[in-house]
């Protein structure tokens, strides 16, 4: 029997259905018209953003919450190039995305045609892999590979560039979700010999710590980590990307390490005799001066990406594989050592150096840390936080208590201002029953403020907490500390009245400039349906502390004026 042929565009939507995709984030345009025409009759939902960059960030937020690849459509040329920041962001944070871009028709490629851009070339260094489809007959295998690559191993964004004529080309469609790629064989099970060495090292350790990161969340290792840490009585430090994989309110949790980490976490890493690094990549914001990092410790490094092991620091016991599977094996084989003296030491550090920033507020000035703590206190369980980048991001990481994985979405690697709000939109779509709060700054928010329209149009219950200090606060802080208070181009004097901007879009707007107003506004926002913006007018020159200056050892900490 001869099978009937279908168009390339129809193949793409069928493939998405077979991959279980429910929603696509995107923005139409000329070269991708045939795909949007096909989408018109499809049961797959589409979230229309107002700028392509927001589509990637929203898909990224969606992917971080669901654990499944986020899917993006954009057109050729500027549509595709507007994706680049979002793709780089997802690449740095290992977020699974499948991006489908329209391209000028095959015969025009290379002629500098209208809205032509070599998007596979442009995104080469920031994608896990990419394809330029030349023939619709290749579409099924390419799409299946794209989803497989995005969502397995160390996850990441995969781009599929489709010329306009390929959307319209008729071909046979058979789709296999499973695929075999000869040059791609991720390792999941850890090496038994190395695991045994790790078990011995843990048994012999007197001052062990776990340093966990985003890999814990990607692999769903949260429960495995809890079981392992609790049974072994080993304290847990989580990088920005790892927050939530161990409950932020437990005694064994020491906070975040590095530049704006807790003093306890940094002291513990410095004094430790064993670091169990799990799904972390020893970023410079964590290690600071690498020569002085954890000199007293043996390091076990568990990671799915072999290239991460030994990249930044020397590793004593490397274990390549899935961190969840490996932590489960380690827990089973575990012979806990005696960590009681160490835990006592840690307890005394925690008591001596609590995360207290912003407690000393008096009277009228609203401290940003207070706002974050109130948001944390009042929002309750099942809350997802999406942050932007800057001071508010660090305050959120320090003061918002994250209890569950996939509940703290932040641009960790690339540090993309403008990430938070669209990511919050993606998170709300992924999990409509969760409360979603976007913690942003007056600088960051204006990088994707146009998405207020998307939030209103879809009546998404999102609280947008603008920590408004009238500055690009983190840059101003560096100018304050390292550049003699020469505030070059960091004040934002043209800021709009955010409440009125919100209202203009049809979003409820609230304002708070003191402690009482802040608490009231949060309580009110929590009771309102649909998107709400709160403009928190906070102390303009508050700094983030503790702080480790760049290229200083992590136990050399600036505590600030508190």
């Amino acid at each position, binding site marked *: 029997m001869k099978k009937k042929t279908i168009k390339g565009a129809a193949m793409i939507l069928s493939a998405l259905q077979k991959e279980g995709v429910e929603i696509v984030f995107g923005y139409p345009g000329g070269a991708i018209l045939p795909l949007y025409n096909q989408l018109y009759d499809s049961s797959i939902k589409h979230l229309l953003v107002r700028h392509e960059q927001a589509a990637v960030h929203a898909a990224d937020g969606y992917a971080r919450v669901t654990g499944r690849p986020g899917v993006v459509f954009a057109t050729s040329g500027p549509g595709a190039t507007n994706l680049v920041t979002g793709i780089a962001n997802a690449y740095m944070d290992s977020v699974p995305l499948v991006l489908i871009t329209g391209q000028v028709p095959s015969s025009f490629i290379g002629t500098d045609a209208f809205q032509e851009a070599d998007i596979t070339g442009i995104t080469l*260094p920031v994608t896990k892999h990419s394809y330029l489809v030349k023939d619709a007959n290749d579409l099924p295998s390419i799409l299946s590979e794209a989803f497989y690559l995005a969502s397995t191993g160390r996850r990441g964004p995969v781009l599929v560039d489709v010329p306009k004529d390929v959307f319209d080309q008729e071909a046979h469609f058979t789709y296999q979700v499973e695929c075999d790629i*000869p040059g791609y064989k991720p390792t999941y099970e850890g090496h038994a010999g190395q695991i045994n060495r790790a078990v011995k090292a843990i048994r012999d350790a007197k001052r062990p710590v776990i340093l966990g990161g985003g890999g814990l969340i990607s692999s769903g290792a949260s429960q495995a980590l809890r079981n392992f840490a609790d049974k072994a009585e080993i304290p847990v430090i989580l990088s920005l990307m790892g927050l939530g994989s161990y409950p932020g309110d437990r005694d064994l949790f020491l906070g975040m390490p590095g530049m704006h980490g807790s003093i306890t976490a940094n002291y513990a890493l410095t004094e430790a005799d064993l670091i169990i690094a799990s799904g972390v990549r020893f970023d410079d914001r964590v290690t600071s001066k690498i020569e002085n990092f954890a000199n007293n410790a043996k390091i076990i490094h568990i990671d799915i*990406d072999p*290239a991460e092991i030994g990249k930044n620091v020397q590793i004593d016991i490397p274990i390549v594989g899935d961190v969840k599977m490996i932590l489960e094996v380690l827990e089973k084989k575990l012979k806990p050592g005696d960590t009681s003296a160490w835990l006592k030491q840690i307890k005394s550090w925690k008591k001596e150096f609590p995360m207290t920033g912003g407690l000393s507020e008096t009277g009228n000035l609203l401290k940003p840390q207070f706002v974050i703590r109130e948001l944390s206190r009042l929002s309750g369980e099942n809350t997802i936080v999406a942050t932007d980048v800057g001071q508010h991001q660090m305050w959120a990481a320090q003061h918002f208590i994250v209890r569950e994985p996939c509940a703290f979405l932040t641009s960790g690697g690339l540090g993309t201002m403008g990430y938070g709000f669209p990511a919050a939109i993606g998170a709300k779509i992924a999990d409509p029953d969760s409360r979603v709060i976007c913690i942003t700054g007056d600088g960051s928010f204006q990088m994707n403020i146009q998405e207020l329209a998307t939030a209103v149009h879809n009546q998404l219950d999102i609280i947008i907490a603008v920590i408004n200090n009238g500055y690009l606060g983190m840059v101003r802080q560096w100018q304050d500390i390292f550049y003699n208070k020469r505030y070059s181009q960091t004040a934002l004097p043209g800021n709009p009245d955010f409440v009125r901007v919100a209202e203009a879009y049809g979003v409820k707007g609230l304002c708070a400039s003191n402690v009482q107003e802040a608490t009231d506004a949060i309580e009110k926002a929590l009771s309102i349906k649909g998107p709400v913006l709160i403009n928190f007018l906070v102390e303009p020159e508050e700094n983030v502390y503790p702080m480790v200056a760049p290229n200083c050892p992590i136990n050399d900490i600036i505590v600030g004026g508190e």
Partner: protein
Amino acid sequence: MKHVLAVLVEDKPGVLSRVAGLFSRRGFNIDNIAVGETITPGISRMTITVEGSETIVEQVAKQLHKLVNVLKVSNLSKEPSVSRELMLIKVKAEMGSRSDIQQIVETFRGKVVDVSPDSMVIEVTGNEEKMEAIKLLLQDFGIREIVRTGKIAVLRGSKVTGEF
């Protein structure tokens, strides 16, 4: 130290720019690179000479291996191997100097592949030291142009670098 990496890749569009791009963006230096087909259709072999410490070269190999189109990466410098490069040298050759040049070429087991009234083209194969040695000797006559292929290498003995 110089390391010679044998990289087996799928012959897919863009694979060379993926490999080259990886080197530039991670700050690794390619000393030279040679690409050609293998006995398996659809699979090419890149021979890449990299300058760097053991740690750097290990990182290069791991990063290369992450590229989806890269099937296998082997460091040939870690085992006994044979390496060759082909060089074409165009040298000034007046009537009086031709026989001197000819002698040098013979000593190096090279070949004269073209002669014109005032120049000769010489073909030499060998390892890097040999290339440098003949270059040095011919310099006095006046070298006008040099073209080199980049190094290719193979393991000694019956062991092969990859089967796909």
